[in-house]
């Protein structure tokens, strides 16, 4: 097999090496500069290509400029099919493939793309880290923010009928399982334990289905892609991307703000942060689809209402958001879900007041600290700064426990923090459970 092809392969190798010799040189130099030392040179000796590894890399030669003089006919050696001294090199029209090959696709320039628009659009995606955090999110979504937990849900959290049997013990066990017992190693990673903790807590809440059958009318979705478009001032904004776990339900959530509170927002003035523009850190695109609104599901979905979104700080290892930016992401995506569903129900024309405000909840965690958000969409008319505003309750940085240490913290021969779970706060899980049971009680 090798006997026949050997001369051809040798020729191919020769051409290849002459073509790639420069590239090989550059690669070797890169390796040399990155690691330094002669040991790497030894490991990557090239026996087939004989050139100095540290030879100077010549710059690429620009081809001679071809001058076209109108009226002057160029006599080329194209018809003769070989080089003739004195005649000029023929120039042919560029060859274009008459079939589509995805490996060799050259994208047209931006202004020739079919979706090109003159006006830019600012896109918020799952990796955006907004500079001003929740303030920016509140301005973009025309929302009035209230810090704290909704009082009616708080009272619901405290009723003993709505608690799990042996709640504290079971929640402590689930925290210990996530933090200590989940893997053979002593200490699982933050990403792993925060995910396990969230799933354990969801499982605990879902076991209440025996006493509250309405919980059975919900489903979890992991990889859904959200899209929503709205106008704010003169700018167009879009929110796109996969963000977290979505719990959808067959029944809509009841409102958290009464009609009077909604009307009171007329007087509220949104916080601006001049001189920083509200579009800072958002991705500015000029190629986009207008009116891109999608909940991520088809129209005949049996669970049309978004109930709760669960965000994990460590879901995307490449994108680490600070706490304020993480809360802004929660606000934006909750708003996006509510807006997409509002468009489906009431149409895409901006409505100044929705008959039935859409409520969506969100929970964000990093494994120990929880952020609770309840968002109510009152209006889809977001272009002006006046009028009815949306509202939200935001409970920031609620601790579930103080410490979960594998080895005790000892300072000056005194145990400051013991090993194991320390400082468990039962109120946090009650709030989580209240948000879960909201709408099913």
């Amino acid at each position: 097999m090798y006997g026949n092809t050997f001369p051809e392969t040798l020729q191919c190798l020769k051409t290849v090496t002459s073509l790639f010799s420069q590239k090989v040189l550059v690669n070797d130099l890169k390796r040399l500069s990155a690691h330094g030392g002669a040991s790497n040179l030894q490991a990557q000796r090239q026996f087939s290509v004989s050139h100095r590894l540290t030879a100077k890399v010549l710059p690429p030669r620009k081809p001679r400029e071809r001058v076209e003089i109108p009226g002057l006919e160029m006599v080329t050696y194209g018809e003769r099919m070989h080089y003739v001294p004195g005649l000029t090199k023929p120039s042919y029209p560029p060859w274009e493939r008459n079939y589509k090959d995805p490996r060799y696709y050259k994208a047209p320039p931006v202004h020739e793309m079919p979706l090109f628009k003159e006006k830019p659009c600012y896109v918020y995606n799952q990796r955006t880290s907004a500079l001003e955090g929740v303030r920016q999110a509140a301005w973009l979504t025309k929302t009035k923010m209230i810090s704290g937990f909704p009082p009616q849900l708080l009272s619901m959290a405290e009723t003993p009928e709505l608690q799990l049997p042996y709640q504290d013990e079971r929640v402590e066990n689930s925290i210990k399982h996530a933090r200590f017992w989940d893997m053979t190693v002593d200490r699982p990673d933050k990403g792993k334990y925060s995910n396990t903790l969230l799933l354990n807590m969801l499982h605990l809440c879902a076991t209440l289905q025996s006493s509250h059958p309405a919980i059975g009318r919900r489903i979890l979705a992991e990889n859904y892609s959200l899209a929503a478009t709205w106008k704010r001032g003169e700018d167009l904004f879009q929110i796109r991307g996969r963000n977290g776990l979505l719990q959808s339900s067959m029944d809509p959530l009841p409102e958290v703000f009464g009609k009077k509170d909604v009307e009171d927002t007329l007087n509220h003035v949104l916080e601006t942060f001049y001189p920083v523009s509200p579009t800072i850190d958002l991705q500015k695109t000029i190629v986009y689809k207008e009116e891109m609104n999608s909940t991520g599901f088809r129209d005949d979905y049996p669970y049309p209402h978004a109930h709760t979104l669960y965000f994990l700080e460590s879901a995307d290892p490449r994108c680490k958001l600070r706490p304020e930016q993480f809360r802004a992401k929660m606000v934006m995506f909750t708003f996006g879900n509510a807006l997409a569903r509002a468009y489906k129900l009431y149409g895409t024309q901006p409505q100044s007041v929705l008959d039935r405000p859409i409520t969506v909840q969100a929970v964000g965690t990093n494994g120990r600290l929880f952020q609770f958000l309840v968002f109510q969409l009152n209006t889809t008319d977001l272009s002006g700064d006046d009028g009815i505003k949306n509202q939200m309750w935001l409970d920031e940085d609620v601790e579930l426990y103080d410490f979960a240490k594998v080895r005790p913290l000892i300072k000056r021969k005194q145990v400051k923090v013991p090993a194991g779970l320390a400082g468990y706060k039962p109120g946090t899980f009650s709030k989580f459970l209240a948000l879960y049971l909201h709408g099913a009680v």
Partner: protein
Amino acid sequence: MAACRRLPLLLPKKLPQFRNQKYVHTEAVVKEPVYPPIVASLTAKSKSARLRQIEEQVKKICAAPVQEKLSLVTRIQRQKFVVYPQTFARNADRWYQHFTKTAYIPGLPEKFTLGQETPAGEEGSRPAAGYSTVPGIDDEALADIRALVSRVILHEHWHLLKKGKPYMFRRQDQLVGPFLRNLVAELTHSLTKYNPLLCLSSLDFSPQVNFYWRRGQRIIPKGHRRGHLEPQRFQIDDHPHSQIRIAQQLPQFAPLEASFTAEVPEVKYAPNLMPLFRRQYDNNIFTGAKLPDPACYGHTQFHLVPDRYHRDRKALLQQTDQVEVFLRANALASLFAWTGAQAMYQGFWSHEDVSRPFVSQAVISDGHFFSFFCYQLNTVALAVETDANNPRKNVLWGTESLRLYDSVQDGEVVGLNDGVIKLLVQFLMNRP
């Protein structure tokens, strides 16, 4: 005469009956051993000393608490065969049966009845009696569960708008994995009202299950220990898709004694011919959570068939007969590891055999086809010394792969199989 015998002058009429004293009901005189027992030396360079060392080690392990037992058994690292539950080897189920001393019985235990196999007599009586084959669940609830299953299938395959095709060789991960997760979670949560065991259960996603054991021995062919006998060590490192762990043990499917007559295939070849490869690393015994976790017994495991062992790919390689073999080998290895680890968490090990059988279930699926398996661990004494007179065998019951649904068309699930749903429900409803 009395003087030379030193007898008293006046002999009493009735001498005390010395002769019959041993028949009188008194406590026997315990003779304390004056010298310590004669045993082989502990530190000599001899075979009997080595045997005595092993005996001392075994006594030490038996006397230790469970955590210590586990660490003592898995302390020393040596070259061991790494057994992969999902393997490309041909006829892997026969090899694994030999390694784990398991007998395979086709079909499920009497507890679970396949919906398709109900005889005609029962069919006639069923509508009259008004109850379904699943105890504790009536027809209405079963219809609800059927609707739930079809909603979960449609959610994943129809309603969720997906951009683009899944990556090459990641189809099972990206499409079927989330579907199975949703199915498991939804079924478990909806059955909590019928099975209170599930209320206190722990549902793990992508857990780890490890087990380490010894079986058989070989003569070391080369090296400074040439000619010596060495036990063959095995390790399973399994990653099921999801599992349910409970705080109480499931009841046995069949009595221990029934396994004495079961047949275990014996493979005369060395394990590395399977092919099985040796490595040396940490020996782990793990059920999915460490010892302090209260949910230390297993209920059901769910496994996902990966892309490279999918039946379509097996068909491409003209190995369609190996599809069922693969599923059986997977169930065998995974369930043996899980039940073995559960037994070790209770303090049973090779030299202290289980006093009660440990039982677990598994469902292996690739999205369309579901196979159901039940495993009963009757013995964990598989080492050479303890296996010599051990008549007990472990038992695996299993089904062939059954189709859950044919396809999804226009927002409807076509060909939803009720029997498979009933089996799933029966599996999850299993309780003591």
